[in-house]
């Protein structure tokens, strides 16, 4: 009886793993990016799909202009505060599973423009980002590298269990608060559920008072 159950379970397990493998393989081999460029990095993103670098080799040249058919949002360029609600809304309108690559300094943290009054300091304040690519702009190879990293990340995801990714978990949200235009700034200025700032950093900077002079 016990033996039987064990073998039964393991057989089911095999089925489940192969299903998971198939699922992950399908997802990672067919990542269709949203046709969506913001600024400088968008040109490098286009260059990545062009003949020299050819993102199509990975089956990802199908840039869909409508978020409904896209799997991957490459936030390529500066997200301004005027643009942020649109980016979040577009992300919300993408069907699950969806991934975000934050390409370039501006998309990660505001980059060189981060002290600007109209520049959002990183799109991860509002939506969860899977892969960050530093660079200003990152080389096309860097985007392909990030793409491979995302594929690896997808490949390691579980279909079931407590560690399953967000889109397979009914309790996790699939859409995020779209900020609204306020009188001086966006409201809210960040989504605290998504963006968790490490506490240590400002205090590090605090040490620097004498040194900066």
């Amino acid at each position: 009886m016990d033996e039987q159950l064990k073998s039964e379970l393991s057989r089911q397990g095999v089925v489940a793993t192969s299903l998971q493998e198939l699922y992950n393989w399908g997802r990672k081999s067919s990542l269709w990016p949203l046709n969506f460029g913001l600024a400088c990095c968008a040109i490098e993103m286009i260059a990545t799909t062009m003949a020299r670098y050819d993102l199509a080799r990975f089956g990802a040249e199908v840039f869909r202009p409508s978020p409904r058919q896209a799997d991957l949002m490459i936030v390529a360029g500066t997200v301004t505060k005027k643009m942020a609600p649109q980016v979040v809304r577009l992300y919300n309108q993408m069907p699950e599973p969806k991934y975000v690559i934050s390409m370039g300094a501006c998309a990660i943290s505001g980059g060189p423009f981060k002290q600007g009054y109209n520049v959002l300091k990183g799109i991860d304040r509002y939506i969860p980002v899977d892969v960050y690519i530093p660079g200003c702009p990152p080389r096309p190879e860097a985007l392909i590298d990030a793409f491979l990293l995302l594929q690896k990340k997808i490949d390691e995801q579980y279909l079931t269990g407590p560690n399953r990714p967000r889109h397979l978990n009914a309790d996790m949200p699939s859409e995020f608060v779209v900020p609204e235009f306020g009188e001086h700034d966006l409201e809210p200025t960040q989504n605290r559920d998504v963006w968790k700032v490490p506490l240590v950093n400002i205090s590090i900077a605090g040490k620097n008072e004498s040194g900066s002079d």
Partner: protein
Amino acid sequence: MPQIIDQIFVLLKHWLMGYIPALLQPVVSAILSVVPVLIAFPLLFAITTVLERKGLGRMQNRYGPNRVGPFGFLQPMADGIKSLTKEDIIPRTADHLVHLLAPVVIVIASFLVYAVLPIGRNMVIVNLNAGVLFFFAVGSMVELSVFMAGWSSRSKYSLLGAMRAIAQMISYEIPLVLASIVVIMAAGSLSTVTIVNLQATYTGIWPHWYVFTPWGLTGFVIFMIAATAESNRCPFDLPEGESEIIAGYYIEYSGFKFALFFLGEYLGMFATSAMAITLFLGGWAAPFSFLTWIPSYVWFFTKLLALIAVFIWIRGTLPRLRMDQLMNFAWKFMLPLSLINIFAAGVWHYMPAGISRWFVVTLIVALACILLSRGLRRNKWFHVRTYRFAS
């Protein structure tokens, strides 16, 4: 031996039918003839999508998909799995039922037309004596589904796409039908099987394809242009014109519904190409009498792939037309030309065989072409300009 290979599927079916009780025979026979079509053409769809992406890549100095599976040929499978597991979004304000039905209808309509297409010698699902009529009648259901999709989504862009689609597709429906009339006049039958059989005869080594007559060639060109427009392919891809109205009528479709639209579109393209082959290019007939040992279905699919290659080639080269130009082209060029072509086919019929009728009919068609294209250009500037330089 070649005959056996040629007829192997037919014989196989007959052999199987021998084991089936007589009562079930019609049903089983129907199923046996339908299932291969249901397998072959979706498979062709899968292969075509890869080939298209690779072919476009090669035209653009790159490889195209080559990582997923051997040489990238598992790409459609990955796309399929992904679409299948993708979340399905229906806009809140949309008409839910119509929104759901549209992709189903397009696939059904696209499949139905294969009922009358002879894939090989004696290989047709049903030999209707009004086959061509059936083809066009069922084929126009595609327009309906496109409109359903665009309208029900209740998005502005999809509405524009639907409106464009309906105007475009009905406009090109007429040249499509009229272009095929010349063949029916010559064949005297609406049955696709008869039409192909008539073409599968040879004088010397040359076949009797209708494309090898002046009116046949004109008809073929008109048919192909109209078929491109019917299947929303470049340069007539206005209903989904990506750079203008984003994704057109299927803008709100996600997951497998979107894949179904793709499937339907490609199946429609195959079907119209297959019809063009049937009507003008001798269907499954070999191009030379000494090549008849190659099985008929091989010829059919070879021709089909060749036409698809042309579709891809055109897509890789041409920009898109504008709506008014598209409509003008349909109503002021294609439609009159196809009417004149019918007249030319009539003249051909009544003139004695020989060089003189070749000359006269060619003249009629060529003259019509030139005059009509002139008419298209008339109120346009439309010229290759020369430029001056500042001193």
